[in-house]
Structure formats: C-alpha cells, structure tokens
C-alpha cells in the first residue's frame, strides 16, 4: 500500500553529501515530495528530512539504500506519533481595504503572520503540518497569490524517543 512517510537522516556534514543522497534517489526512481536540511546540535552532523511516498517494499529500499551511503549515520522512518512542520512565505496582491480585511481573517484562522506590508502586497509567514499549509494556500488561491516559498517538512518523534548516534572508534 502506498503511504506517505517522513524519514529523517543524520549525515556527516561533508561537501556533496546532499548530492549523493538526491542522486541516489533519482537513480533508483524514488520520488521525493519534499526535502529539508539543516545543522544539528552535534558538530559535523546535519539532519535531512524527506517526505516520500511508496509501498512498504519501496520504503524499505529507500532506507536500505540510504544506509549504504558511507556518510549516512542514521536513518529513521517516523512511523509513530510525530511532529511535522513546514514553513511557508506567501506574497499576495491586495486591492482595497476589503480584501485586506478578508486576508487578515484568513491569516488569523491559520495562525499565519503578516511579515511584510506594501501598498499592493501582503506577505504571510505560516508554519504547520504540510496539510495545513496546503489548505492555507488553497484559501489564498481565491486572491492574487504572487509568490510562494515552502521549506519542506521537518519532523521529530513526539515524547521521549530520540534519534541517537552510536559513537565508537573502530580499530582496523
């Protein structure tokens, strides 16, 4: 059964590590719905999160092929309760006071902030589950959306579960 998975990958923060991963995805025909990267609190370690869709077999291959890469330290499929957040910036054209008020109301409903105001444009910042951002954008589509930028989802397990790294020097 095809399902949406959010996968976190801890990687060594080396040049081209992201290229290695995305090129592997492309080569093996895995589709990435979204991707986000950033440093972690551990020096030299970055964290990437992917949203991918696939059946169990595909997802198993995604994880195994990721693990094959030398610079990949840990791969976790967030299967349990998780936090999932995406950030978006959206610039919308506004004409007149009425539209301004309507847009403000929509923003409030989605807890979006107006982060920039111009004579004929408003820019919103919204964070949340990607599905929420989809709905926000849908609402705005009735107005003149000029520009959007989404970050890709980041995720973390709820509760006390954490992704741990093994740290051990191997003598060869």
């Amino acid at each position, binding site marked *: 059964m095809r399902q949406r998975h959010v996968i976190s990958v801890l*990687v*060594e923060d080396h*040049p*081209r590590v992201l*290229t*290695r991963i995305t*090129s*592997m995805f492309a*080569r093996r025909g895995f589709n990435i719905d979204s991707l986000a990267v950033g440093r972690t609190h551990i020096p030299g370690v970055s964290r990437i999160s992917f949203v991918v869709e696939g059946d169990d*077999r595909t997802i*198993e*291959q995604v994880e*195994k*092929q990721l*693990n*094959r*890469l*030398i*610079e*990949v*330290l840990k791969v976790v499929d967030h299967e349990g309760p998780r936090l999932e957040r995406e950030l978006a910036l959206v610039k919308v054209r506004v004409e007149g006071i009425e539209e301004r008020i309507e847009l403000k109301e929509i923003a409030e409903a989605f807890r979006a902030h107006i982060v920039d105001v111009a004579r004929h444009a408003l820019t919103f910042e919204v964070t949340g589950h990607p599905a929420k951002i989809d709905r926000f954008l849908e609402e705005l589509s009735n107005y003149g959306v000029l520009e959007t930028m989404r970050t890709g989802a980041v995720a973390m397990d709820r509760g006390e579960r954490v992704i741990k*790294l*093994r*740290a*051990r*020097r*191997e*003598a*060869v």
Partner: protein
Amino acid sequence: MTGAEVLLEALVREGVEVIFGHPGGAIMPVYDALYHRRELRHILTRHEQGAGHAATAYARASGRVGVALATSGPGALNLTTALADAMMDATPLVAITGQVPTTAVGTDAFQEADVTGVTMPITKHNYLVSDVNDLPRIVKEAFHIARTGRPGPVLIDLPKDVQNDTFTGSFPETIDLPGYRPTYKGHPRQIERALAALRAAERPILMVGGGAQHAAQPIRRFVERTGIPVIATLQGLGVVAADDPRFLGMPGMHGTVAANRAIHEADLILGIGLRFDDRVTGDVARFAPNLKTLIHVNIEPADIGKVIEAQIPVVGDAAWVAERLAEGAEPLALDAWWRRIRAWQEENPLPFPEDGELRSQAVIKAFGEATGGEAVVVTGVGQHQMFAAQFYPVKRPRSFLTSGGLGTMGFGLPAAIGAQVARPGETVLLFDGDGSFQMTLQELATVAKYRLPIKIVLLNNGFLGMVRQWQDLFYEDRYSEVFLADSNPDFVKLAEAYGIPAFRVERREELEDAVQRALAEEGPVLAEFRVKAEEGVFPMIPAGGSTEDMITEPPEEARS
C-alpha cells in the same frame, strides 16, 4: 614528504604491490615519486579502461584490492566503464586520479572534469582531497571501504597541488567511519532458522554467486555434508567444482535445463552471495513459483528483499555464515528430489552438434579438457562468454573472470592481463569474441611489454554474434549492423605486429593439435579459431521470460 610520496607510502602500508595505470599531466608528481619506489610495480596499459579492467581482474583473481592510476579529465573518464563494471560485480578497487590544482577546480581548466561528480553513482564511495594531511586517512578509508562489506570501487581524486604540498600530518592507525559498519556475523537465530528450514525442505537447492567466491571451502563442506544440489550464477562459477556431481550448472537466461527446472520446482532456495539479477530471474513474478522459503545470505542488506522476498534473511559474510551452516548441517534425505533432477539432466545435455564444423563450444570444451578445468579463464562479452560459462569446467574459485553485471565488451584482454599478473605461474585462458577483442586490443602491447604468457583464444565468428542471435530470434533475421568479417583485421598478423606469436585454425580436425600448440607456448600466444557463424547459445530464456518459455534448441531454419 610530498603528497605524492605520502600517497605511495600509504599504498605500501596497505600492502599494495601492483598498480595498473597510465600517466598524464595532472598525475605527474605521483609518477615522479613512483620512479623512486621500486617496491611498487607499475603495469603501464595503453588505455585507462585497460588499467581499470586489469586492476579489477587482479583483485578478483587474487582476493586483494586492485589499484588503478590515471590522470585528470580524459584519463579519469576513460576509467569510468571499469568503475561501473567493478561496482556491478562487487570488486574491490581503489582508483586514484589526478585533478587540476585546487585553485583551478571549477574554472573549466585544461583537462578538468568533475570526476567525483561523474563517478558518484558508479563507485561505492569517492573522495576529492583538498588537504594533503588528510591523504593517509583517506587512503586507509578507501581500502577499508573497497574491501569490506559488499566490495566495490572507491575513487580518490587528487589535485596536482595537493600532490606537491608538504605533508605535516601523521599516518592514522585506526579508522573512524561511524556511518559504515558492515555486519560480518550472521545472526545466530537466523542461522538456526535456516538450518531448521533446510531440514524440513523436500526440494532444496543452493545458489551461489560472486559474493561466495571467498567462501568456497565452507560451502564445499556444506555441500559435501548435505548432498544439496548446487547452482552457480555466472559470477559464482568455481565456488563448487564443475565436476562435482551435485553441480547443476548456471541458472537463468542461458542456464542449463536442470538448473532452471530445479529452481522452478524448488521449495527452498539457500542463496549465498548473489542478488537475483534479472538475467538470473527472468520475470520475477514467475520465478521459482513453488518456493516457500528463501534463505538469502548477503553482506549487503539492500540486496536482500530487493528483487525477491526472503523469508529468512541473513545479513553477514558468506564465508562466516557458510562456516556455521556447514557445522550445523546434517545429511538431507533428497533421493526423490535427486531422481527428478537426474532425469532432467539426462534428457537435456547441453546441446551442440558434433558435425565436423568448427564450433566455439567444441573449442572451449577442448581447452577445458586439456587444462583439466584448472586454468584461470577470462572472457569478453557475447556468445563466446556464455559458451565459456557452459562448457569450461571451472574447478577452482576466483578462476572465472567475466563482466557479468555490466556486460562490458572489451573486458577480456585487459582482465587477462590483471589475472596473469595476479597469478603469474598459472595458465590464463582468454576466450574472446572478434567484436569484444577489438574494443581493447591495444592492450596487446601490454601483453607483449611484460611477456605475459596469456593464451588468447579468439573465437572469430565474423559477427557481433550475440546481437545477431537476438536478431535471429526476435527480429526476423534482420541482421542490422552486426557483420564484422568484411572489415576485421588479419588477427594473426595483428598479433605478430605486436611480437606475439599467433596462428589460425579453420577446421575441426585441427582443433586438438591447436589446443596443444597454444598451451605449449611459453609466452603469450593468439590462436584465432574461425568458428561457425550461424550459431546460437541455448538453452535460452528470452529476457523477461520464465522457465516455461525456455527455448532448448535452435529453431529449425537457424540450424542450417
């Protein structure tokens, strides 16, 4: 010490004795340092692809890591086919390429190519060295990565300025690769489950692949103990001796009827060191339809469950796991199963007519008999390759070297060079096709230069035979661009031009004498056999087919 000297010191510390390579501008400091390090033998090939395949065959024939050296840009790019080949067939290789100076990287400098970018998908890992003090660590890691886990090629791209930089670091004793920890020891519980499943099976078979070449001893003991039928993939030939009564031959597209029928009927497959490639399985949905239990032993978790679901996955080293299986196994009661297999074998000997015509199959068989199956066999790619797999009775592991996963025409001659360098005292037989041979025949110069006593058996059918066979079977005899005979060189004169003795054989009656003549030659020799062109490799399961689609004999008109 300069970076170039550090590199060579690090190679020596890894136990490297031989390097296959070709110089050029961006790797000259390394070649200059090499001039002073006589303990490192350098084999100069005439093309970097040759160096890559030679290093590959050296690795597979010796069990050590092969090393190839090339310059930047065109030199490195010429290596890429060999890297992809080594990746597919899990060969431990370290390739070192020169690169333009770090200051010039990214400027489209002379002979610059993004080699780490290009080789990313065809290497197990690669490095671009930016600091000379990292070099010993990188070399150590590269060898470790190349030889452990599922072996593979690792490339080190070394900018010219780094080769000249002064080293102020130290050589590390240990490796720290937190993201790379192959599992060697199969899980004891999985091994217990495997042994129990074997005891319960009625129609079990063992399938071995290239990943079992280093595990021949325990596997042979396991086979001895259990009496299980054995099938070897193209890369698994020699793990069990071809004359072992329990050996059924090769599976898949050009496998034996007995091997494919046995897979079709098997209720249990114990697969060691193979990945169920499509040439083995055909249509996956119809592969082994009676299978209840697949025990899949592989050191690479990603190769388990990729094609066929494994009920008992065992992640671990083939030799380690086979050792445990051999210890724990009991004789299996397989009389009924063996009776069926023997019947398939008797009804379906490998077909080829002995009608007085000079055929590739007969040539290979004659060499097999004359060498007692003890030679190191190397092949090109095509019909002759499949005939070699079918008719040369490979007795020993690491002794059948062929390009399987990538199917690289031109692999043969340079690979024979690597094999002969790895095993100097042994007979190396190269079975090559006229098409394949012409893709890398410049390496005749290398054979001559080092007087490598390779026996080149050129099976000249005047065609790109394997393509012609497909045109016969699937394209209504439309022989589009496969005819070579009108423009092939005189291969005998060609070899002689390189100072290599050569002779031509045109008739079946001359075969036995010709074999003796070739084998009696002390140095290299090229024996050209003008073999029958209208010939097919059978049995054949067409691509994407199953055992039920097996063509066991050539169609009528193709036989005339």
